[in-house]
């Protein structure tokens, strides 16, 4: 099978699983998860084969695997769609397929496959536990998710969307995959649809990303009308890029390339939860944890960054290397600001998943900022390493929550929130595998030197920022890195170190193998993946292992980016912030046992700078007002319905008028009754003629006869008409 055919086939196993589960195997849990996990495995296998083959191709950037077909007739030409795997695509395919496969496998355990059905579990609410009798006494164990198969169906659809997006060779199918993932995020965040908070979160996610999508679509439309094509290979030719870079638009003095890039970037702002469209991501924690891992690590948010990476040649079309263009400045600013902004919020969150959510926003800000300053390879590198350790952290947190829920079921106290870090503690002893893998992930996130992948990727971004002289970006990112390490250590300390703070934490236990195995595998990548991107000029290690990543992914661009000269300052800075942050985090929180002792529970931070409240007042309430009052009450009810309601009484009045004045009076009375009355009157009054007396009849007859005779006599006599 050719590589191109294989690339075409990669997205299909998950969507096939989706349809089969939805249509046929919904009731059968084993069949459903086998189909889903099997599909994820097949896609992973295909992706691996493609990746390995891609590694073997020289200058893959100039000769990528591509294949397209005629799809839409557009007058004389055809609109083509197809697949494209260039080096960036191959690298992204690698991590996407592994993380998706891991998440599918993890979900089998997370949704409690093999456990008994719950006592009073309803579809739409998280499972509550089942009472089992064992050796004479009862205890409550975790119960299987009632909507088990549906979950895998949705995951399959989600995976399909991501694969379509990754292998696309044109913006249209890219956008299709983008939107499919938007839909699936709605479906999965609101998976437990009976919870009002989940429903609201799903709508919020969809709405917020939609705002970004509208601008993205505008960008795509503008691009199509300016160039007549949406295929990446055709857009990223010298001539097209030059043409776009030199066409001026009336907006902000941007060139066409800049404007399109900005519009497409706004789509990323929505999808990757950058400021100001970041509000949906923390609420999206309402979904089951594998969903959070999927959305916030492996796929959806990465898709946003991937979009900017893909469109990098367009965004940098008028970048000369000295001084950022307007678009790039906006991108860099939003990225750096988001990174710092989200990190400050994360230090005050108490829910284990919320911390990770804000951490994701922050890390995405890193990548966006890197792209904004033109550090293509660094951004791609951080994207991939982040996917691994963030997925690891989310799945690990899911494992922690599962263990805590076990404790909750054991004690029966349902008022204890199994996700609140202040209810945990000492879990390293109860859940060792989870602890060690979570630790690795956390260190990677913080950028622990040398042995974690996060260090290499983060360091490269900082080096790029410093090396090209963007001090403000550098400063913001460094500060954010410090905070990242700090809150990560805070999280690890509160969750795993120390002693259990509640009974539920005491009774926590390790999760089964479908959940811990993916953790281990992802931890492996979180450690080793960094070593494929060691910069050339790194002291000591540089040059030992060739910077494969830089060579490979850098080959995607038309101009191969040069390796940066080494500079000590960014390296020292990153070491200080990472190790310092970790140390301080441990120092402060090893003795904090309750919320009241935590000095960082600053209301401004805890309430996320009141952004949700602000949006509510600025946008949501006016929208409701427009919908409920303006449109519904005034326009629909009063104006439209009012107009319609006029018809009723008016018709009634007209009808009454016709009835009473015309029908009754004229037709009925005058004509109908009138004719009978007149006839009756004549009859009654003329019947007197019929006396029954012959002599009177005779007299009448004679009188008439004489009159007629006289008339005829005179007529004939004087007009002489008688022959």
């Amino acid at each position, binding site marked *: 099978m050719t590589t191109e055919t294989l690339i075409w086939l990669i997205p299909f196993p998950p969507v096939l699983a989706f349809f089969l589960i939805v249509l046929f195997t919904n009731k059968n849990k084993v069949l459903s998860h086998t189909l889903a996990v099997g599909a994820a495995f097949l896609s992973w296998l295909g992706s691996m084969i493609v990746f390995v083959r891609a590694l073997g191709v020289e200058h893959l950037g100039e000769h990528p695997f591509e294949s397209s077909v005629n799809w839409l007739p557009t007058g004389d030409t055809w609109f083509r769609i197809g697949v494209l795997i260039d080096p960036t695509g191959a690298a992204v395919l690698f991590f996407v397929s592994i993380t998706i496969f891991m998440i599918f496998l993890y979900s089998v355990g997370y949704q409690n496959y093999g456990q008994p059905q719950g006592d009073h579990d309803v579809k739409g609410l998280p499972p509550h536990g089942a009472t089992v009798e064992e050796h004479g006494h009862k205890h409550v164990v975790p119960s299987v998710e009632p909507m088990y198969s549906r979950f895998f169906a949705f995951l399959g659809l989600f995976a399909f969307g991501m694969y379509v997006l990754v292998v696309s060779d044109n913006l249209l199918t890219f956008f299709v995959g983008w939107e499919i993932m938007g839909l699936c995020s709605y479906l999965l965040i609101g998976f437990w649809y009976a919870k009002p908070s989940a429903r609201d979160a799903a709508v919020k996610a969809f709405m917020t990303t939609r705002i970004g999508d509208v601008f993205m679509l505008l960008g795509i439309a503008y691009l199509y009308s300016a160039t007549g094509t949406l295929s990446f290979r055709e857009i990223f030719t010298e001539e097209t890029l030059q043409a776009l870079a030199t066409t001026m638009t009336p907006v902000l003095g941007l060139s066409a390339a800049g404007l399109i890039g900005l519009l497409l970037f706004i789509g990323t702002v929505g999808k990757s939860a950058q400021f100001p469209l970041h509000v949906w991501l923390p609420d999206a924690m309402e979904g089951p944890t594998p969903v959070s891992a999927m959305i916030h690590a492996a796929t959806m948010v990465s898709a946003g960054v991937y979009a900017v990476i893909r469109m990098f040649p367009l965004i940098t079309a008028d970048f000369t290397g000295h001084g950022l263009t307007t678009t790039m400045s906006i991108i860099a600013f939003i990225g750096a600001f988001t990174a710092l902004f989200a990190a400050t919020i994360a230090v005050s969150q108490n829910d284990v998943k919320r911390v990770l959510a804000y951490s994701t926003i922050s890390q995405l800000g890193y990548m966006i900022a890197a792209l904004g300053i033109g550090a293509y390879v660094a951004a791609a590198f951080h994207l991939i390493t982040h996917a691994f350790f963030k997925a690891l952290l989310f799945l690990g947190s899911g494992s922690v929550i599962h263990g805590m829920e076990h404790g909750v079921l054991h004690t029966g106290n349902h008022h204890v929130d199994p996700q609140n870090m202040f209810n945990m503690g000492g879990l390293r002893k109860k859940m060792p595998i989870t602890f060690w893998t979570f630790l690795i992930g956390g260190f990677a996130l913080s950028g622990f030197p040398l042995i974690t992948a996060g260090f290499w990727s983060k360091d490269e971004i900082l080096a790029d920022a410093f090396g090209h002289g963007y001090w403000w970006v550098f400063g913001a990112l460094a500060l954010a890195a410090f905070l990242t390490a700090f809150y990560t250590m805070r999280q690890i300390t509160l969750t795993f170190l120390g002693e259990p703070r509640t009974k539920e934490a005491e009774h926590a236990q390790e999760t089964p193998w479908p959940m811990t195995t993916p953790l281990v595998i992802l931890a492996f990548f979180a450690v080793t993946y960094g070593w494929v991107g060691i910069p050339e000029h790194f002291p000591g290690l540089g040059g030992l292992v060739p910077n494969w990543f830089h060579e490979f992914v850098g080959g995607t661009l038309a101009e191969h980016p040069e390796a940066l000269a080494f500079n000590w300052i960014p390296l020292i800075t990153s070491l200080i912030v990472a190790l310092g942050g970790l140390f301080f985090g441990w120092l402060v929180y090893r003795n904090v046992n309750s919320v009241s002792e935590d000095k960082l529970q600053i209301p401004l931070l805890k309430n996320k700078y009141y952004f949700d409240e602000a949006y509510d007042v600025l946008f949501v309430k006016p929208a409701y007002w427009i919908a409920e009052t303006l449109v519904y009450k005034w326009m629909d009810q009063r104006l439209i319905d009012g107009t319609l309601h006029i018809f009723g009484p008016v018709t009634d009045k007209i009808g009454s008028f016709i009835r009473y004045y015309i029908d009754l009076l004229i037709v009925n009375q005058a004509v109908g009754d009138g004719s009978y009355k007149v006839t009756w009157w004549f009859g009654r009054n003329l*019947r*007197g003629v*019929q*006396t*029954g*007396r*012959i*002599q009177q009849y*005779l*007299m009448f007859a*004679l009188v008439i006869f004489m009159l007629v005779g006289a008339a005829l006599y005179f007529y004939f006599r004087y007009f002489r008409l008688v022959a």
Partner: protein
Amino acid sequence: MVPLSWYLILAAALFSVGLFGVLSRRNAVAILLGIELMLNSVNINLAAFWRYGNVLDMAGQVFAIIVFAVAAAEVAVGLALVISVYRKRNTVIADDIDLMKW
């Protein structure tokens, strides 16, 4: 030497008298009397025209003979009717025989 007009006027006068009788007598039999007078006046007219016209043409007299026959038949039937009504209603007053009244 009697002009035709005298006979005709006589007939007209007799006719009018008969008409008066028909129109204003109460008794049904008296009405039939009036009718007889009228028929007789017609006969006078016919005979006069025969005599003062073409004597050879007997049409006038034949007509008068037919009128006789008709008058006889009419009187017979009429009086039979009056008698029959008298038997039923016990009256011969024309005004009382008003079953055809509205």
